[in-house]
C-alpha cells in the first residue's frame, strides 16, 4: 500500500515534460545515431572485411583468418612493424624522461619567462603535422649537410631522424599529461619526506615519483600511440629503405587495397585503443 502511494505521483510528473519535448528528444536521438554511425561504421567495415575470404577488399567471401596469417608471413610488413615499435619505444622513453623533467620544472619553480615558456611548450600540439614535418625535414637536411660537410661523412636520414622528430613532438604531449597530474600533487609531501631524513634524491624516488607515476605512465602511453600512428612526420623525416608501418601501409594502398591492409589496420586499431584506454586508466588511478 505504502509503496503504491510513493510510486504513483512520479510517472505523472515525469510524463508532461517528456510529451512536450518528444520531437526535440527524437531529433537528438537521430543526431546521436548518425554521429556514432559515421564514427564507427567505417571501423566496423574495416574489421569485418579483414576476415573476408576474398582478394578484393570490399567483397565478402566468407570468414577466414588467412589475411592475418599472410600478414605475419610478409617480411616487408613485419620489418615495418618492427621499425615502428623500435621508433615508438625509443622516442617514447626519451620524450617521457625529458617531458617529465620539463613538467616538474614548470610546476615547481617560479622563474622569469615561465609564462612564455609555458605557451611555447604547447606549440607542437597545435602546429599542423604537415608544418611540423616540413620544418623537421628542412632542419635535418640542413643539419646533415652541415655535419657531412664538416666531417666528410655521408650521413643520411634514417630511423634515427624519425626518432628525434617523434621525441620533438612527444615531449609536449608527455609534459602536458604529467603537468595535469602534478596539479593535484601535494608539494608538502616533499617537505614531510625531507623532514624525516630523506635527501632530494630519496624524496624524489620514494615519494614524488611513485605519486606522479600514473601521470607519467599515462603520458608515455599516449606518446607511444602517437608515435606508432604517425605517418606524416615519419614520411618526411625518414630516409629511403626505412619504412615505419604507416608508411608501408600507405605505399601499399597506393597500389591497391588488399584485405591484408584491412588486417594490419585492424591490428593497429586494436593496439591504439588498448594503449589509449591504458593511458586513461593510469591517469585516473592517481585520483582515487
Amino acid at each position, binding site marked *: 500500500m505504502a509503496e503504491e502511494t510513493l510510486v504513483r505521483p512520479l510517472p505523472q510528473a515525469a510524463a508532461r515534460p517528456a510529451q512536450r519535448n518528444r520531437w526535440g528528444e527524437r531529433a537528438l536521438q537521430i543526431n546521436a545515431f548518425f554521429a556514432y554511425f559515421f564514427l564507427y561504421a567505417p571501423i566496423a567495415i574495416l574489421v569485418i572485411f579483414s576476415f573476408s575470404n576474398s582478394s578484393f577488399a570490399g567483397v565478402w567471401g566468407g570468414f577466414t583468418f588467412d589475411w592475418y596469417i599472410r600478414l605475419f608471413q610478409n617480411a616487408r610488413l613485419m620489418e615495418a612493424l618492427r621499425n615502428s615499435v623500435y621508433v615508438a619505444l625509443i622516442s617514447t622513453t626519451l620524450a617521457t624522461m625529458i617531458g617529465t623533467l620539463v613538467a616538474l620544472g614548470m610546476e615547481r619553480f617560479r622563474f622569469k619567462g615561465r609564462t612564455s615558456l609555458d605557451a611555447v611548450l604547447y606549440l607542437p600540439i597545435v602546429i599542423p603535422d604537415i608544418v611540423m614535418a616540413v620544418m623537421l625535414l628542412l632542419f635535418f637536411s640542413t643539419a646533415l649537410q652541415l655535419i657531412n660537410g664538416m666531417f666528410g661523412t655521408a650521413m643520411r636520414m634514417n630511423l634515427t631522424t624519425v626518432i628525434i622528430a617523434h621525441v620533438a613532438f612527444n615531449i609536449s604531449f608527455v609534459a602536458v599529461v604529467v603537468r595535469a597530474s602534478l596539479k593535484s600533487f*601535494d608539494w*608538502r*609531501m616533499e*617537505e*614531510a*619526506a*625531507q*623532514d*624525516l*631524513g*630523506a*635527501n632530494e634524491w*630519496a624524496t624524489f624516488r*620514494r*615519494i614524488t615519483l*611513485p*605519486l606522479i607515476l600514473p601521470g607519467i605512465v599515462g603520458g608515455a602511453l599516449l606518446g607511444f600511440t602517437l608515435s606508432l600512428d604517425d605517418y606524416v612526420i615519419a614520411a618526411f623525416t625518414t630516409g629511403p629503405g626505412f619504412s615505419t608501418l604507416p608508411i608501408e601501409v600507405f605505399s601499399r594502398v597506393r597500389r591497391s587495397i588488399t584485405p591484408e591492409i584491412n588486417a594490419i589496420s585492424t591490428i593497429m586499431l586494436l593496439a591504439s585503443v588498448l594503449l589509449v584506454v591504458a593511458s586513461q586508466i593510469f591517469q585516473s588511478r592517481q585520483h582515487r
Partner: protein
Amino acid sequence: MARTIAVELASVTKRFGDVTAVDNTSLQLYDGEFFSLLGPSGCGKTTILRMLAGFEYPTSGSITIHGREMGHTPPYKRPVNTVFQSYALFPHMTVEQNVAFGLEMKNAPKAEIKTRVVEALEMVRLGEYGNRRPRQLSGGQQQRVALARALVNQPEVLLLDEPLAALDEKLRKEMQLELKGLQERLGITFLFVTHDQEEALTMSDRIGVMNRGHILQVGNPIEIYERPTSRFVADFIGETNFVSGTVCELHGNIAAINTAAGQTLRGLAQQGVQVGQPVTISIRPEKVFLTPISNGTPPTPPSKHMNAMPVQVERINYIGSDTRIIVRLHDGNTFDVWESNTRSTLDRDEYWQPGEAALLSWPEENALVLTE
C-alpha cells in the same frame, strides 16, 4: 636547577621580498619543555617553525639546536621532526610504512625498525591500524599517525604546526591532553605553533606571544594571562576591558590614573610607568564585582584599595557556567563583567535585570596599567 638550552634563536630576521615575517627575534627553548608560539595568522610563528625545520633559512641571525649551528643545514640533516597541519601522510604507503620511513632513511636495522614502529603505533593507540592506508583513517587517527611518524625518530625537538586545527572541538580537547601527556612522558622538547589561546594555555609550560614578526612576551600560562606586559597580549589572551588615562601618581607598584571621564582609578603598574604618561588600564571581566545599589544611594567601596564606579546594567547573557553582563559607565563606554553561577536557582529575581543600577568595583591589584 640549571636548564639546558635545546633551541636558541639569536637576532633572527626572515624577509620574503619586501615583507619581514620575523624581525630580529631572539628566543630560547629549554630541554624537555612544552613551548607554544601563539599569535594571530601572519604573525611569523609558522615562519619560525619552518626555519627550525629547515624549510626556510633565516635572512640574518643564527639558529642553534643543542649548540649546533643550523645555518643552511637542509631539513634532512636536522635533529628535528615536524607534525604538519595537514598531516602530510604519504598516501601510497600504509600507516606502518609511513612511520617506518624516517628510520629507513637513517638506515636503521630492519629488526629495530620493526619493533620501534610497533612501539610508536602502540604509543598513539593505533596498534591495530598498521596495514591501513592513511585515507582509511579518521582525522584524529591520521593526526596520531603523523605524531607517531615524527616521534619514532626520537627528535631532539618536535615541531608541531597547528596540528589540531583541523579537528572538531571535542576531539581537539582530547588530543590536547593526549599530546601534553605524551610530551611529559617522553620528555622531548615540543615547539607548538597555534593561534588558539586556550590550546596554548592548556598545554604549555611556557608561551611566546607573537605579533607582526616580534615576540612580545614569553612566560608561563599564568604570567601571560595574569601579567600581560602589553595591550596586545592582554587583548589577545582571554578577554579584557580597557580604560585609558594618564598617570597622576605612583606609590610603589600602584599607579593612580586620571581617566578622560575625570575619575581616578588605581592599578598595578608595569615597570617603567612614569607620572604624566598616557596609559591603558586592563581589567579582566571575571576580576570585578558588581553589587546592586538599593534606594539610589551608592554604597561606599568595601575598602580604600578598591576602585569603584556606579554603572547601569545594559544586557545580560546567561551562558550556563557564567553570566556575562554588559554594563554602561557614566562616560558612555561599556564594560564586560563575568559572574560565575555558583548557586543553582530558577528564581529570576536572583539575576540581574536590564536597567538596574549597580556599583562596579575591583581591588587595585586586579587592574594592570600598561604603557602600550
